């Protein structure tokens, strides 16, 4: 069966002049599903424009929000506000307290950590244990791996190797995303998976991390956002007086 390759983190804005080019290139590289982060109070027209551009090149558009709360309370408030509006909720964890709360929260889909500051990568064993119970996935942006050079890249690779080993030990799903905004930094799905070899992921795991795992998260969330969804395993089939 053919894989559905997903890039859940394309960092382009709809107003960006290169927006259409980036989306078209993503499609030509073999991706079938893309997400662009929107702000929590986004305009519907922006999403419609994104949807139209994606549809023109046979791409499935995913509505994603990136939250960057400063405290666990702020995170809870923000997640409550956005969960029913977005298909993917990602938390960028700048502090340890936020990282812990995000890993605990069942409404959070993706945990993202700053790539450049390796001291603020809080994905350790306690974090993984919380994440595996709440089914949040660890998102790894590949842009820094492509763009960085020298000691910064070495430190990032070392941190990622440790995080991936922990995630695999606790069964935390891993999602590989491009995280790029420039055309020249886009790579095909197998290229992204090949880069994951640098931090110890084998080919099969890496390909799952760009296909089955992200598409599974989106599929599951779409099911939950469907008005006919009642509870896991229960869906409203028919409504009326004759039921």
């Amino acid at each position, binding site marked *: 069966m053919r894989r559905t390759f997903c890039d859940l983190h394309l960092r382009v804005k709809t107003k960006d002049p290169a927006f259409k080019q980036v989306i078209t290139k993503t499609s030509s590289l073999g991706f079938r599903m893309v997400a662009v982060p929107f702000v929590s109070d986004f305009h519907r027209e922006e999403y419609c424009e994104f949807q139209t551009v994606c549809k023109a090149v046979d791409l499935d558009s995913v509505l994603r929000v990136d939250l960057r709360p400063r405290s666990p309370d702020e995170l809870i408030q923000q997640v409550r506000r956005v969960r029913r509006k977005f298909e993917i909720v990602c938390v960028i964890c700048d502090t340890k307290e936020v990282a812990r709360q995000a890993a605990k929260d069942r409404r959070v889909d993706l945990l993202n950590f700053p790539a450049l500051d390796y001291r603020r990568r809080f994905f350790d064993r306690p974090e993984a244990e919380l994440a595996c119970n709440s089914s949040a996935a660890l998102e790894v942006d590949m842009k820094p791996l492509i763009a960085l050079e020298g000691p910064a890249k070495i430190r990032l690779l070392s941190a990622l190797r440790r995080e991936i080993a922990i995630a695999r030990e606790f069964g935390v799903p891993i999602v590989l995303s491009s995280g790029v905004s420039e055309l*020249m930094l886009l790579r095909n799905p*197998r*290229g992204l998976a090949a880069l994951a070899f640098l931090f110890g992921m084998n080919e099969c795991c890496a390909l799952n991390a760009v296909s089955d795992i992200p598409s599974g998260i989106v599929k599951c969330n779409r099911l939950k956002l469907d008005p006919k969804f009642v509870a896991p395993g229960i869906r409203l089939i028919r409504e009326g007086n004759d039921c």
Partner: protein
Amino acid sequence: MKRVKRRYLALEWDFEGFIGENEFMGALWGSVARLFGENGASLANLVLIDYSGGSKMATIRANLVAVDMVRAAVASVTCVSQKAIAINVVAASGTVKGLSRRLPKLRK
């Protein structure tokens, strides 16, 4: 002696302008050496089989044991002659014949 198994990789790139095959192979070797060191580069045993600067495609050969390293190195190349480049592996096969059979299908 055990026969060395190899893989042929078809590469395609995005680049504004023309790059010569020496520059191209230099960038690939540089990337492999930067990521895996000289020992890793020696394991890869990269050879340029076919090069077409006009259609921006090339075929390289690498040892099977190092094919993951080569793929990672190819994805890591960001510039040639101080200009941005994006190289992607579009197909891989155990023989040149197999690779050429797969390429027309990809072009459709």
